[in-house]
């Protein structure tokens, strides 16, 4: 506990990003871009509903989500990715999504969360390709034997301020 106003919370932080949203917005205009964001939000809300999870904030076309357990985070993220890939492949959603996730302590600042867990999750997200979810070794370790998803090792990412590299694993839909 940092203080009553800034409690430490343990959980998983998931970042999502719509690949090429800025260029898409430029090509189709604001109204259509807004529709895409609304559709994304609706899909995500549906997956978080009733779970120990919440949307922390929207960052442009990206979302930052906090999930209370690593096992729950892996389950929600993989389901969400499959849902996004499904609607994108069928042609009803124009952009691919990419995701990155890390697990650890964050500090609450009002409704927001800050700290290295958040920074690392954002960095991981930036390394994912369209239709991919990258997760850290820390998240898998927190899952223990409950990690059910089919994951493949990707490599270590060096993050400013961290002494040791963060090892990544890739989940991609078939």
């Amino acid at each position, binding site marked *: 506990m940092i203080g009553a106003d800034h409690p430490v919370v343990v959980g998983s932080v998931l970042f999502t990003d719509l*690949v*090429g949203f800025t*260029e*898409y917005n*430029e*090509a*189709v205009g604001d109204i259509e871009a807004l529709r895409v964001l609304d559709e994304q939000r609706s899909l995500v809300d549906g997956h978080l509903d009733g779970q120990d999870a919440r949307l922390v904030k929207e960052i442009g076309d990206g979302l930052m989500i906090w999930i209370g357990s690593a096992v729950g985070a892996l389950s929600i993220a993989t389901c969400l990715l499959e849902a996004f890939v499904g609607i994108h492949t069928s042609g009803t959603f*124009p*952009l*691919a999504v990419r995701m990155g996730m890390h697990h650890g302590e964050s500090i609450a600042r009002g409704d927001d969360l800050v700290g290295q867990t958040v920074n690392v999750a954002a960095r991981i997200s*930036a*390394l*994912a*390709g*369209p239709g991919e979810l990258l997760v850290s070794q820390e998240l898998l370790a927190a899952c223990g034997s409950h990690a059910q998803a089919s994951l493949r*090792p*990707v*490599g*270590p*990412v*060096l993050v400013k301020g961290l002494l*040791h*590299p963060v090892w*990544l694993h*890739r989940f991609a839909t078939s």
Partner: protein
Amino acid sequence: MTSVPDKATQITVRISSTSDRLRVVAEAREDVLVEGDAIVHRDGSCTTIDSTGRAIVVRVPVGADLVIGTTSARVEVEGPVGQIAVVTKSGRVSVADATSVDIRTSTARVDVGRTSDECCVRTSSGRVEIGACGSADVTTTSGRIVVKAANGPVRAHCVSGRVEVGLMAPENVAAETVSGRIHVTVPHGVAVTTNDDRSMLTAWPGGAEASITARTVSGRVDVSSK
């Protein structure tokens, strides 16, 4: 100089390095040899190397799997290796010959000679050149990716950059760009027809067929024969 004897069937070498230069040489040997300042830890057939010196050379057995993470180093991998994964922000990465590669970078220049299986590359704005590969899964935001000869299924995605793929076998291609350009080249003699839904069909000498699905908002996906 640290020598780590290895006798296991499949050797994995995990390297994280803040060095300026990392050189990995796959050669006829059974151990993993590290030249330069590094902390080396061995766990069964897996060797983990943490390097902080200016330059490091790692000598590995032919066919070893590599997992490499750097910030902005020059990474050179010489000789035939197994699966290789590289994560780096910038710098330059060159891989001569691997079973498969998975390279993720923001701005690094990437050169891959050949892979027999999958070649997976993610870059924001770097320039990537791949000689020959099995399947290809390549993504760029605004950079340029050239796959000279793909012999397996291809998945190419770019936002505003450019992807060029030379398709050498009757395999499916899924190409997607927002405002960039994806160009697929097929060998002379392969017939290309476009369907109503903008997907394309390639008919290869011998009767094999494959599909090319193209998706774009304001960019361009085209196919030509050489």
